[in-house]
């Protein structure tokens, strides 16, 4: 049985035709940025950068949730793992991210109770099954992931669990786009907007940003034809001087997004400023658990202060995340820093730009 609407969008003939159209259409040099780790991986895996004409440069932005997590937040995760009677539950890609002096993986090797879960709901079940321990779930991710964690908090409330806590380090995308536009180091002529963040948010969430900056912005799906079609639309907009906010992934993304998911999100979280690796503090780009649900908030129930820290010496991950540098421009790339021995998160996460570059370009 075919996988609905994935095979079709992998059709090599359609992709080839799209590349031809893009080649014919593109005359002005442009820098287009994708802001989604799954796009980054798909672009590298399918060799999309290599088939585009030299006028088009694709930049990878801050689209990998683990990568944009601040060093101080990683250190905080480790500090929670060291608490008594505490199980830390996390998605697997955080394990190997180096903190200042340790990593969750190293803590696990030293006997701390750290469990990898596939879903935040698995962490709720873990709490139900371990009433004598606290389960702290590490909340990392964008608007695609945050509603799943919000729904898990509501489920824990309905189950009247007192030992399920979330440490929220979520980040949200629209205000990060503002920060990227304000960064003078990189000129961005168009954005490939993230597919599944937009599934939740809908096109409407980007409208204030678009009205302010009038920069071409197109939501893209994940198959080669999806990405190429979005690039084609961006190029048409640049060439015609008529920027638009456009949706090239209408089978999943609507104007208003998933209303139910946004409702759950709003019920549980409120916007707060957040620290992004490589970018710094961005107003209203993080999510804190609302006071009414404070009993599920690890930051309130078990406050732990960790010092502000420097990012790993020599690691250019911050510049990679804003598109200012590409991985080979980092002195450590392929030398001190490899997927087996990562120095920064951009090499740890499979969605990190350094890891994707290493895997598909060598």
């Amino acid at each position, binding site marked *: 049985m075919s*996988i*609905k609407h994935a095979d079709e969008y992998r059709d090599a003939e359609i992709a080839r035709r799209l590349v031809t159209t893009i080649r014919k259409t593109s005359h002005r040099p442009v820098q287009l940025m994708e802001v989604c780790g799954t796009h980054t991986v798909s672009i590298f895996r399918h060799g999309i950068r290599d088939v585009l004409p030299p006028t088009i440069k694709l930049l990878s932005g801050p689209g990998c949730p683990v990568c944009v997590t601040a060093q101080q937040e990683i250190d905080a995760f480790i500090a929670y793992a060291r608490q008594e009677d505490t199980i830390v539950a996390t998605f697997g890609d955080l394990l190997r991210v180096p903190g200042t002096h340790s990593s969750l993986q190293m803590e696990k090797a030293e006997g701390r109770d750290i469990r990898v879960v596939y879903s935040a709901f698995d962490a709720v079940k873990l709490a139900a099954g371990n009433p004598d321990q606290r389960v702290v779930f590490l909340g990392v991710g964008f608007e*695609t992931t945050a509603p799943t964690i919000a*729904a898990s908090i509501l489920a824990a409330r309905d189950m009247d669990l007192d030992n399920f806590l979330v440490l929220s380090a979520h980040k949200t995308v629209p205000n990060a786009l503002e920060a990227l536009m304000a960064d003078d180091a990189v000129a961005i002529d168009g954005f490939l907007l993230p597919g599944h963040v937009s599934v939740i948010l809908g096109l409407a969430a980007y409208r204030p940003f678009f009205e302010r900056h009038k920069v071409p912005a197109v939501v893209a799906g994940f198959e080669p034809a999806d990405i190429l079609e979005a690039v084609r639309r961006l190029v048409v907009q640049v060439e015609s001087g008529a920027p638009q906010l456009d949706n090239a992934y209408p*089978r*999943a993304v609507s104007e208003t997004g998933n209303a139910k998911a946004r409702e759950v999100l709003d019920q549980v979280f409120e916007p707060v400023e957040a620290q992004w690796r490589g970018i710094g503090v961005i107003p209203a780009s993080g999510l804190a658990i609302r006071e009414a649900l404070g009993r599920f908030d690890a930051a309130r129930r078990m406050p732990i202060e960790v010092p502000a820290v420097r990012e790993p010496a020599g690691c250019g991950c911050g510049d990679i995340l804003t598109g200012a540098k590409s991985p080979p421009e980092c002195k450590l790339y392929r030398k001190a820093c490899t997927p087996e021995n990562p120095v920064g998160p951009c090499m740890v996460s499979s969605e990190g730009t350094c890891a994707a570059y290493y895997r598909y370009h060598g």
Partner: protein
Amino acid sequence: MCLAIPSKIIEINDNMGTIDVAGVQREASMLLLEDPQVGDWVIVHAGFAIQKVDEAAAQESLRYLREAAQLLVDDEDPDAAATG
């Protein structure tokens, strides 16, 4: 972290669904979906179904892409002959 290919709902019990993704069956929560039905194609992220795939929109954009490709075949051929 995103699983881009759609899964099919094959069973729903309360708010938990069994989904089939490329022949592999998994559990996924339906808590974030309005009115999930057996047979729906959905996008699943971190153990939750987050959206139904809009069938009409999918067909429409495929038709559009195919047409765009076809248009190019028509105006590309003489070009191809001229340049060998």
